[in-house]
């Protein structure tokens, strides 16, 4: 049977992708950001999964205001890289895992989560920046990826509680898949940031660090945090952090299994407008 071996959490700041693509990683401004991922790149090489289930949000690229799915699962064999207005990032196309994705859709929908199934979709920096941070700049990504897009652009976005419960349903789906696949689940976005209005540039380090602490130790309590706390304390775009709870809800320790291991933790301010947060949690 398939199983989830680990979860990865990271911001997905577009400027980080641009810094990589334009070879600026050695600049003093960017050095500390990429240094925080050196361990992670080696870790991923040493712990290469068969599939990555990658939770992210689209930023007005694949989805316009014509259709706004709350939860969308990518079931295609491959996904092209979106042109977000500056031209597509020069990164490999994303190879999907249609069979596992369809299996997860079937199981999770029967568990009362109404997923939108997407057979054709471009992926934006929300997905490709985490891949770049964790994999560097390879010719092809190391394994297939199932893109899972969450609406965190138009309110109301799904609650933390619902995201956490969805993570549990995704875990159950993966564990009922017949092939013995090693799956990692990644939650991306955040941390504190606000990109709009006179309050743009907001950062709240204390809140971010407390979020990381609670995500590790008290995820169920953290899942009860209302939207308004994210908006007020972590900025209007800080709401992306609810997506981390999907990955967290899929881990062993909150589903009757053994305690997990915190393999890596990193936090840095700033990258462009945003606080960078990153965790690797392993099942045992």
């Amino acid at each position: 049977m398939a199983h989830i071996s680990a979860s990865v959490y990271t911001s997905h700041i577009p400027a980080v992708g641009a810094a990589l693509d334009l070879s600026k990683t050695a600049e003093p401004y960017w050095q500390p950001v990429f240094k925080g991922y050196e361990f992670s790149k080696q870790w991923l090489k040493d712990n290469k999964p068969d599939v990555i289930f990658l939770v992210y949000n689209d930023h007005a690229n694949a989805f316009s205001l014509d259709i706004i799915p709350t939860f969308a699962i990518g079931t295609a064999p491959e996904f092209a890289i979106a042109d977000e207005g500056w031209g597509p990032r020069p990164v490999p196309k994303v190879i999907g895992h249609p069979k596992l994705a369809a299996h997860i859709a079937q199981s999770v929908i029967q568990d009362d989560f109404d997923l939108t199934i997407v057979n054709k979709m471009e992926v934006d920096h929300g997905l490709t920046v985490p891949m770049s941070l964790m994999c560097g700049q390879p010719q092809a990504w190391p394994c297939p990826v199932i893109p899972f897009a969450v609406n965190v652009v138009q309110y109301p976005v799904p609650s933390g509680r619902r995201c956490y419960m969805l993570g549990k349903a995704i875990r159950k789906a993966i564990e009922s898949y017949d092939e013995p696949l090693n799956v990692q689940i990644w939650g991306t976005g955040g941390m504190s940031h606000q990109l709009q209005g006179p309050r743009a540039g907001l950062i709240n380090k204390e809140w971010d660090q407390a979020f990381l602490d609670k995500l590790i130790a008290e995820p169920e309590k953290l899942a009860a945090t209302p939207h308004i706390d994210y908006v007020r304390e972590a900025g209007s775009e800080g709401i992306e952090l609810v997506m981390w709870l999907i990955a967290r809800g899929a881990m062993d320790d909150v589903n009757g299994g053994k305690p997990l291991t915190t393999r890596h933790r990193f936090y840095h301010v700033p990258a462009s407008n945003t606080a960078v947060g990153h965790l690797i949690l392993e099942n045992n």
Partner: protein
Amino acid sequence: MSLDKPYMDVPGTTIFDADMSRQGYHLNQFCMSLMKAENRARFKANERAYLDEWPMSEDQKEAVLARDLNRCIELGGNIYFLSKIGATDGKSFQQMAGSMTGMSEEEYRNMMVGGGRSIEGNRYTGEKK
């Protein structure tokens, strides 16, 4: 009965909810059209004529022409959509975000390098700094 919107008292912040999205639908879809290179070229060649192809309000069109992002947001624009205008103009996300704060580009960049805008005094409208 009106819906609960607890986010109305967050200073300097407009939450893009279903009401705002309804008002901003054409404005945001216009922005989305700028993802195509040929549309960017047509828009740059004659901005007013390009905007007139969209059923946007006059206020929305004027806000776009003035690149007044705060006004665009007030009229239903969302920053991820509006960023396509910035991309067309060759602006970074940081330049766009900074343009809404009343700070110069350099002041905004320095604020971010210094740890960002503090949360203290920025939680509630009218709160003492």
